[in-house]
């Protein structure tokens, strides 16, 4: 070992060129960000160019698919003159209000992990970096992770709206600054909430998060209950829609950013709306920046103290070991071996003891259940076979999409997380394939419970015929198995072994591929199962002699006969089951193979 130079003061830089300490730190963090990003892209590309290209092609394909869906939807509304100012503003407002809530929650959860629980936070806090510098650095990361899905979903929708309404060029140009300003605001609010929780109630943070979720679901439920009570008098669909629109205006209150963005984007879509749109953009941007600056200032003053409070909180809370859980698992998963059942119990315990995980499931499932339980009020849907069928499959699709989000977020990262602790399972007398099938059983079990309940509620509220109910339940079972197979199989095939944050694992290459594959699979199953029913529902619509057939321009030749329906339904069921089996076993096969060959 050679010797180290003596400790001596480093040469001072000339005063006029010397950057401030904050600038130096920021330069350092920027350098860190750029080099990390560059090396990550290089290593991903060098690791497998094919994989990299597949990810890009899949993303483009997914974006294109969403664009087509949105474009068709907006064209339909435009064609039937349904795109009217207040209604579309309300729809946009609701979309952005939902995103607002989701971004507040997702940014808080990511930032809590990143700023208070990670090794990196500890590493950065040991350096002479101002607290707001660390916050800014981690905030950028959290925003990128929490809002990429928002961009992926929102951008095709906005482009489709622009094209279908013939919006001027500035509508597209303003889209990105609008999205960025909009995402910044809930991000800053979420970050502030996280800090205040960590600083003033570190022991109650989980309870407060649960309480917040309950409040959100309660507000949504109360709006819908009020809508329900008020619309009892509204016998016509038009009156009902008017009542619902009136009740849902809460998402478009003047002080809500969701209203600023929806009004601003709509103004941008008009020929003479540029100045109005720029006004709303400035309102949004100035508020977002003010919120961010305020949050950064609070972090500068409280972050270190908050970190201390979180780390000083006693975490050794005792949990009673439940005996009923192994008992239930033992009876529910007949046919699985003892070690697999032990793994299942472990996974259920880990999941149930992390409210930040299951809280998200509760919020979105709760909101969906509330929506489904209010469907009965739509008289139009309960009498028209066409609408009942369409809405029934639409609900199955929404439930399926929610399921794919759950499996991407919770199931896909399981194998990556397990890989880091593989010495535990690796030494256990259990085959690696059994470990994977255990995860699969955990995923299918949970998915079936949530989705079948939702499907039955939706079917009951829409008063669907037993055949249609059975078909939708079958579709959901196929989806549960397929989506679980994809998530577990791809999770084992494309693990992110160095990453400990499940949200980051889910948004990596494998996670994105898993999400896209799941969505394509769901779309295929639903389209295949729904098509014969859709065609037959047209026939029924004409036979019932309802006005909707005329309103929807359904011709007598549009539908199919009962015999044709039976034949095509059998074909579609066979196709869906076959594709479901492939989606279940093929990813599991490649996952098991990769997992068995992997060296830890």
């Amino acid at each position, binding site marked *: *070992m*050679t*010797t*180290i*130079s*003596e*400790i*001596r003061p*480093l*040469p001072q*830089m000339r005063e006029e060129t010397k*950057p401030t*300490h904050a600038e*130096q*730190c920021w*330069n*350092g*963090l920027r*350098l*860190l960000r750029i*080099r*990390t990003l560059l*090396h*990550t892209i290089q*290593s991903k590309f060098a690791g497998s160019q094919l994989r990299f290209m597949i990810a890009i092609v899949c993303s483009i394909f997914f974006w294109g698919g969403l664009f087509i869906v949105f474009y068709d939807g907006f064209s339909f509304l435009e064609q039937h003159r349904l795109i009217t100012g207040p209604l579309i503003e309300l729809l946009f407002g609701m979309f952005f209000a939902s995103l607002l809530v989701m971004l507040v929650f997702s940014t808080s959860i990511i930032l809590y992990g990143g700023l208070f629980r990670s*090794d*990196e936070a*500890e*590493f950065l*806090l*040991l*350096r*002479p*970096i*101002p607290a707001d510098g660390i916050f800014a650095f981690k905030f950028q990361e959290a925003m990128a992770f929490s809002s990429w899905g928002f961009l992926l979903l929102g951008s095709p929708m906005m482009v489709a709206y622009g094209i279908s309404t013939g919006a001027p060029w500035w509508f597209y140009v303003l889209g990105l600054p609008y999205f960025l300003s909009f995402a910044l605001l809930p991000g800053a609010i979420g970050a502030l909430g996280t800090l205040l929780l960590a600083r003033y109630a570190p022991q109650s943070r989980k309870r407060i998060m649960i309480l917040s979720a309950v409040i959100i679901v309660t507000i949504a439920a109360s709006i819908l209950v009020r809508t329900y009570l008020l619309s009892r008098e509204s016998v016509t669909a038009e009156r009902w829609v008017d009542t619902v629109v009136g009740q849902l205006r809460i998402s478009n209150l003047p002080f809500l950013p969701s209203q600023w963005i929806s009004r601003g984007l709509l103004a941008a879509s008009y020929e003479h709306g540029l100045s109005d749109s720029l006004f709303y953009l400035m309102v949004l941007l100035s508020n977002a920046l003010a919120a961010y600056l305020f949050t950064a200032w609070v972090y500068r003053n409280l972050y*270190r*103290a908050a*970190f*201390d409070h979180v*780390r*000083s*909180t*006693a975490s*050794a809370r005792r949990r009673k070991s439940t005996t009923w859980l192994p008992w239930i698992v033992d009876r529910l998963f007949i046919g699985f071996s003892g070690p697999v059942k032990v793994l299942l119990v472990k996974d259920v315990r880990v999941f149930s003891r992390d409210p930040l995980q299951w809280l998200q499931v509760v919020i979105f499932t709760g909101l969906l259940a509330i929506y489904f339980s209010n469907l009965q009020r739509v008289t139009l849907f309960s009498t028209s076979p066409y609408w009942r069928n369409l809405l029934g499959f639409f609900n199955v699709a929404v439930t399926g999409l929610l399921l794919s989000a759950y499996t991407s977020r919770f199931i896909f990262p399981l194998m990556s997380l397990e890989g880091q602790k593989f010495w535990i399972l690796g030494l256990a007398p259990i085959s690696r394939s059994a470990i994977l099938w255990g995860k699969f059983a955990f995923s299918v079990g949970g998915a079936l419970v949530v989705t079948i309940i939702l499907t039955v509620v939706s079917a009951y509220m829409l008063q669907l015929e037993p055949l249609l109910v059975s078909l939708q339940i079958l579709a959901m079972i196929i989806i549960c198995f397929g989506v679980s197979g994809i998530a577990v199989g791809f999770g084992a095939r494309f693990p992110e072994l*160095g990453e400990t944050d499940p949200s980051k694992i889910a948004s990596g290459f494998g996670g994105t591929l898993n999400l896209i594959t799941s969505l394509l699979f769901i779309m295929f199953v639903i389209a295949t199962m729904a098509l014969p029913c859709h065609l037959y529902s047209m026939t029924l619509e004409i036979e019932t002699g309802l006005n909707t057939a005329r309103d929807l321009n359904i011709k007598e030749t549009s539908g199919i006969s009962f015999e044709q329906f039976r034949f095509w339904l059998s074909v579609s069921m066979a196709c869906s089951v076959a594709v479901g089996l492939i989606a279940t076993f093929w990813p599991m096969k490649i996952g098991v193979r990769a997992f068995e060959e992997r060296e830890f």
Partner: protein
Amino acid sequence: MTAVDPTSLANSSPHPVALREKVVQLEGVSKVFGSKLAVDDMNLDIYAGEVFAFLGPNGAGKTTTIKLMTGLLKPMKGKITVAGYDMSSNSVEARRNISFVPDQPHLYEKLTARDFLDFTRNIYGIDGPESRRYQEELIDTFGIRGFCDDLIETYSHGMRQRVVFASALLHRPKVLVLDEPMVGLDPKNMRIVKDLMRETAARGSAVFMSTHTLSIAEEVADRVGIIRQGRLIRCGTLAELQTERTGGKTLEDFFLEVTDEGTT
């Protein structure tokens, strides 16, 4: 064994470094985790140019003391000074003068060792040809040059530790804090770390090391502090402790005796 007044331990003189600059001072420091008193009224001075070994059983409060000293945690009571800067009121300047190498150090997997050292220089605001030359010197000192342009994710534990040590010395800290520095190292790397500690102390910095390996403490430490249940129960040079080690007791025997739960 008789109980010891912790306040008297901070300056358990005479010892070889008593007249040197105090680079770390803990004055009546306490820290509570929930209902557990993790550090209890700790008084401790660390001097420039010494290697101080901090010993104690698992859960005694060693890592908490280190985290308090490095500013990661705030004391519930008491005051911590590093190189004359109060860790509470002037934490940025205090942190400029201290380096910490944890037992499981965090490294950015997608950086190379050189990137990581560049980043460290930027964060500490040290730039210019002199600091770059010193960086290259550290790269050679720790034998990093052969792999310094590879991604850290490909490094072994020993390679990582060497990068961490190089980055810890890059800003020439007055205090180097090491938490279990020998864990997972092979004999060659252990030798490098021991030499590093002695050399760093010889150049005028203080080295504060927490360890379970008593032989290492005997080998390299000028002074030893023993902590039990958050209280500093012994502190002094090995020679001072030797006076208590009667009947041919080894340091291990002595350590086990004084840290035994029933003993005061």
